[in-house]
C-alpha cells in the first residue's frame, strides 16, 4: 500500500514536471524574439537602440543566456514558488497570480459544486423517472447542454438576465450576484459532461445481477436506486472528478473574458497572446498541479472505497482510467 501511494505521488510529480517542460518548449519555440517583446512592452522599437543598449537589456532579463540555463533557472525558481518577473508588466508573476487567483478559485469551486449537484440530479432523474418521455428528455438534456459553445451561452445569458431582466450584473467580480451567470455558464457544460458519464454508469449498474437480486428481495425501487445503484455507479464517476476540475479551469478562460472578470483565466489568455512566458508557465503549472492533485486524491481514495479492488499481496490496482470524455470539452 505504501509503495502504491509513493509510486502514485512520484508519478504525479513526473507528470507535473513534464507539463512544465512541454509548455516551456512550446513557448520558446515560438517564432518570436523575446527581446522584441520586452522592448515592445516598454514601448521601444529595437531599431532605435545601439548594440550596447540591446546587450544591456538582454542581460537585464537574462535573455543573453542559453536556453538550457534559462530553463534550469526558471525550473529552480518555480520549485521555490518564484515564477520570475512578467515580461509585459515587470511585476513578480507570483504577485500577479496572487492578486487574481482568489476570484478564479471561488468561481471554479462554485461551478464545480453546482455542476456536481446538477449533474448528479440530472443523471438520477434520467434513470429514475418512470415516464419514458420525461426520461428520454432528461437523458438527452446533457447532450444539448454540451452542444452550445460556452461563449454563446454566456452572451445570451447576459442578453437575457442582465440586459432584459436586469437581475445580475453582466460584468465585474464584485459580490455574489456577479458570480451567478459565470457559474451557470461553466456548470452547464461541466454538469452535462458529468451527467453523461453518470447516466451511462447508472444504466450499466442497473443491469448488474445484484440489482435484480435486490429488487427480487422486495426492496422498493427508490431504495434500490439510492442504496445500491447510485452508490456503485457514483464510484466510476469519481474518476472524472479531475476532468470536471479541468473543465472548470479551462472554462474560466472564456468565461472571465466574456464577463470581464478579474482572474487567472483571463490573465492566462492575455499572457499567451503577448507571449509573456513566465506568466504562461506559472499559470500552466498551477492549473496542471490542481488537475494532478485532484486525480492523485481520487486515485488514492478510490481503492479504499471500492470493495471490488483487492488488496491482496500488498498490491493495489489503480482504478481504470477515466472514461473517455464526452461532450464539448477542450
Amino acid at each position: 500500500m505504501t509503495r502504491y501511494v509513493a509510486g502514485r505521488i512520484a508519478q504525479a510529480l513526473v507528470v507535473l514536471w513534464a507539463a512544465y517542460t512541454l509548455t516551456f518548449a512550446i513557448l520558446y519555440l515560438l517564432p518570436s524574439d523575446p527581446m522584441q517583446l520586452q522592448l515592445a512592452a516598454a514601448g521601444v522599437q529595437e531599431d532605435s537602440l545601439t548594440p550596447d543598449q540591446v546587450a544591456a537589456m538582454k542581460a537585464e532579463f537574462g535573455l543573453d543566456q542559453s536556453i538550457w540555463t534559462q530553463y534550469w533557472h526558471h525550473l529552480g525558481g518555480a520549485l521555490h514558488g518564484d515564477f520570475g518577473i512578467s515580461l509585459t508588466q515587470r511585476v513578480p508573476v507570483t504577485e500577479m497570480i496572487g492578486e487574481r487567483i482568489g476570484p478564479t478559485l471561488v468561481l471554479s469551486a462554485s461551478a464545480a459544486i453546482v455542476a456536481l449537484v446538477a449533474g448528479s440530479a440530472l443523471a438520477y432523474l434520467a434513470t429514475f423517472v418512470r415516464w419514458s418521455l420525461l426520461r428520454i428528455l432528461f437523458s438527452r438534456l446533457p447532450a444539448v447542454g454540451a452542444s452550445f459553445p460556452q461563449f454563446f451561452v454566456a452572451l445570451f445569458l447576459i442578453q437575457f438576465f442582465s440586459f432584459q431582466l436586469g437581475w445580475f450584473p453582466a460584468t465585474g467580480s464584485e459580490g455574489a450576484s456577479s458570480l451567478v451567470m459565470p457559474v451557470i455558464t461553466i456548470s452547464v457544460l461541466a454538469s452535462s459532461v458529468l451527467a453523461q458519464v453518470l447516466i451511462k454508469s447508472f444504466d450499466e449498474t442497473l443491469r448488474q445481477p445484484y440489482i435484480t437480486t435486490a429488487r427480487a428481495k422486495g426492496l422498493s425501487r427508490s431504495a434500490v436506486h439510492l442504496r445500491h445503484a447510485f452508490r456503485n455507479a457514483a464510484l466510476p464517476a469519481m474518476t472524472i472528478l479531475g476532468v470536471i476540475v479541468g473543465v472548470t479551469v479551462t472554462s474560466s478562460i472564456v468565461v472571465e473574458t466574456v464577463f470581464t472578470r478579474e482572474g487567472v483565466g483571463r490573465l492566462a489568455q492575455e499572457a499567451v497572446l503577448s507571449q509573456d512566458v513566465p506568466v504562461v508557465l506559472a499559470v500552466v503549472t498551477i492549473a496542471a498541479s490542481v488537475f494532478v492533485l485532484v486525480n492523485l486524491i481520487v486515485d488514492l481514495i478510490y481503492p479504499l472505497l471500492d470493495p471490488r479492488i483487492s488488496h491482496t499481496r500488498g498490491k493495489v490496482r489503480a482504478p481504470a482510467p477515466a472514461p473517455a470524455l464526452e461532450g464539448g470539452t477542450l
Partner: protein
Amino acid sequence: MTTTEVAERIEVDAPVPEQEAGGRSANLTANLIQLVRKPGFLLAALYVVFVLVSAFWPRLFTSRDPYGTDPKSAMLSPSIDHLFGTDVYGRDLWSRVLYGSPLTIKATLIALGIALVAGLTLGVVSGFFAGVTDAILMRVVDVLLAIPGLLLALAIVTALGYGTIPVAVAVGVGIVPGFARTTRAEVLRVRTLPYVEAARAGGASWGRVLVRHILPNSWGPVAVLAVLDAGVAIIAIASLSFLGFGAAPPAAEWGTLIADGRNYLVTSWWLSLMPGLFVALLVLSLNHISKTLQELSR
C-alpha cells in the same frame, strides 16, 4: 503434416476475414433497419447530410453572394428573402453560413485526422506492447491531459500563427488523449480475445495480427468517439475563432460568424443566434448519432 501447416490451419480456423465480413454485413443490415426505425437518429442523420451537401454545393440552397456588401440592406431581420437576416454590411447571413461550412468542416476533419492518427498510434502501441511502453505512453497522455486544453491550443496557435489550419492542429492535439485512451482500452480488450491469442499461437506476426484482427475489431468504439469528437472539435474551433484566431476575413468560419454578431446582440440578436443554433444543432446531431451507434453496439 508440418508444424507450419498446422499453424496455417489454425489460423484458417480462426474467424477469417471473409466470414467475418459476411457476418458483419448481415449485422450491418440489421442494424441499419433498426436505425431507420429511430426517428431521432433519422432526423440527426438527415441534418448532418444536409450540412455536408450544402457545404459542397451551397448554390443548391442559396443564390446570394456571401461576400458582396450592400449597405442599403444591412441588418435586416430574418425573412423569406434572407433566412438568417443580413449582417452589418448587408450580406446574406444564410449564404455566409453555408459558404463558411467548408472551412469549418475542413478544420474539423484536419483536427480529427490528427487525433485519429496520433491517438490511434499511441493507443495501439500502448495497448499492444503493454509493459514499460504502455506506462510511458500513458504518462505522455497524462501530461497532455494535465495542461488545460484551451491553454495548450492557445499556445499552439500563437506558435503557428492565426488561421484555419493552426486552429485545426491545436484542436486536434487537444483531443488526442481521449482517442489514445479509448483505443488502448479497446486494444487491451481485443488482445485477450481467444481468436487473437490463437492467431498469435499459430505464429502470425505481430503486425499481421494487429492489422487483420486487432484494428478491425477495435474500430467500433473509436469510430463512435470520432463522431462525438467531431462535435467537440466544431465547438473548440468556434471558441478559438471567437477569441479571434480563425480564418482571415471575409471568409468566415461558423465561430467567426457567431462572434461577429456579438456586438449587435441587443439590437440584432439573430446575427449571433442563427449561426449559433445552426452549429449547436449539428453538434447535437453528431452527439445523438454517436450515442445511438454506441447503444447499438452493446
